[in-house]
């Protein structure tokens, strides 16, 4: 047990040794030391070159191993956080990937917005890619049909080549029904709606973030302008209601007095 604990501490110390390289993050100094050592042991130029190359490869492998270790550790940590996330009060109930990690520490709202930004940005890019794929397929379908239509018209000779106006008319006649059929497809409408909704979500998250910065600087934010617009609207409606009540009263009075002209 003592050995195990001792070995474990040694492993951790070794694993954490990369932290000691904070003064030499790219390991250049270490590489120079190893190269110098290799050159000292060499007796021929060929041997020197070979030993320096081996020293560089060894250092490169060591760095890669440390990087992988760090990535593994971070992934384990993220998985642990994700698994305890549902137990925490601010759990958002979102998908069980890394973005579902609970918000910990200060500025939880800001952190949540950054999580949302990543999620919304991914969703928008996905929706945009799907839409562009669909538009690309549509364009290919139209150009293929146009090519076929031109190819099928073998009565044309060089002498009576189509004018630009005729080409435009031919292109429109071929492509328009294909486009309209595409626009009519339920999948197209679903993709367009998804793209619009993803864009709205992304802009709203960006706005929330920007509003936070504006307000921190004491500048007017969208939220503040919305508040003002709401207040104006409330007063506008009160005013209108009062006028309409007066009109109704005047109409009643006219009716009661038999005066049917305004």
């Amino acid at each position, binding site marked *: 047990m003592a050995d195990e604990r001792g070995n474990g501490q040694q492993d951790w110390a070794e694993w954490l040794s990369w932290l000691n390289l904070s003064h030499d993050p790219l390991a250049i100094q270490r590489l120079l030391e190893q190269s110098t050592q290799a050159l000292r042991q060499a007796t021929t130029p060929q041997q020197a070159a070979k030993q320096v190359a081996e020293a560089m490869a060894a250092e490169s492998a060591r760095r890669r191993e440390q990087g992988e270790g760090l990535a593994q550790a971070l992934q384990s940590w993220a998985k642990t956080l994700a698994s305890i996330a549902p137990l925490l009060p601010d759990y958002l109930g979102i998908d069980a990937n890394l973005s579902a990690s609970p918000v910990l520490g200060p500025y939880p709202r800001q952190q949540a917005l950054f999580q949302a930004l990543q999620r919304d940005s991914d969703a928008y890019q996905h929706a945009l890619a799907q839409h562009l794929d669909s538009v690309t397929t549509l364009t290919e379908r139209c150009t293929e049909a146009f090519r076929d239509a031109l190819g099928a018209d073998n009565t044309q000779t060089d002498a009576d080549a189509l004018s*630009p106006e005729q080409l435009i008319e031919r292109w429109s006649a071929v492509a328009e029904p294909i486009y309209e059929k595409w626009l009519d497809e339920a999948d197209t409408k679903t993709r367009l*709606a998804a793209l*619009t909704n993803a864009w*709205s979500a992304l802009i709203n998250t960006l706005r929330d973030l920007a509003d936070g910065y504006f307000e921190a600087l004491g500048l007017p934010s*969208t939220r503040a302008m919305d508040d003002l617009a709401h207040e104006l609207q409330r007063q*506008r409606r009160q005013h209108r209601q009062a006028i309409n009540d007066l*009109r*109704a009263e005047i109409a009643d009075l006219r009716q009661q007095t038999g005066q049917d002209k305004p």
Partner: protein
Amino acid sequence: MSSGITPSQTVAETDNGILWRFGNATKPPLLIVYSLVNQPSILDLTPGRSMIARLVDGGYCVYLLAWQPPGYARRFVSLSDYIRGDICDALVHIHHTHGQPAHLLGVCQGGVLALCYAALASGYSNTDARQIRSLTTLATPWDTGHAEDQLAELARGIDFQALVKATGNIAGEPLAAVFASLKPFALGPRRYSHLNTVMAQGEKAVAEFMRMERWMYDGPDLAGQAFAEFAEQIYQNNALANGNLVLDGTSITLDAIHVPVFSAYASDDHLVPPRSAQGLSTLIQSDCTEVAVAGGHLGLFISTRAHRELYPVLLDWLTAH
């Protein structure tokens, strides 16, 4: 002065609009409520194809409620504000000027606003200055719950509250692009490939082409709240047809309308397909006349056919009511 070709003057301002008058104030009044989406210049675009000039020549003092684009401070202006505020204020002004209620005519989305107003006006006494004499709707999408209505179908899956939260108001330019995207070939390569022919016809033809061009892509911004309400209630819930439209807590049902109704629609309209505009007589209890005109959406206002077939019928109907 309006930007059209018929002489006009500004006679009043409402909270969100300007009231223009065309014609003689001694004639019976008729108030046009245009859509919030485009500029009303399409109704008075060229001599011989001006709906406003036609109504003036037909013996009416025409008023046009021209909506003013909202700034950010008006992003929460709602449909109810336009209907119970601006339309009501314009009608009261007209009533005070003429001493009689006006005929109300709603164009496209303005027709929906006019239908809602007419339903509300059923609660007003005959002596009330807010009362109307008749209702006319042109290309009005009041029943959008079917697959032929492309705009409604596109709107089904969109979260409009999130959209207007993100944008505040809805900008006119992207909205015009959405409308153009329904017919990109007709409005793009086909339309512009005829530009040489238009230029060959002379300056007048070019000026008309450019006026139409400006009209198509110069749509005003829309108040976010009103836009979201319209998209949700009219396109997603088909609330007018289903009888469950509620504005500011007030239920609005078409069967409440008690004034005579004239409804016209275009048989090849891709923005307001016939099925979205026809059949008002099935819900409205009062006298209801429906007329279909061959052609597209804009043709209902500017086509020679509409000026030959529709407007004489409408003028006769107005005179009879």
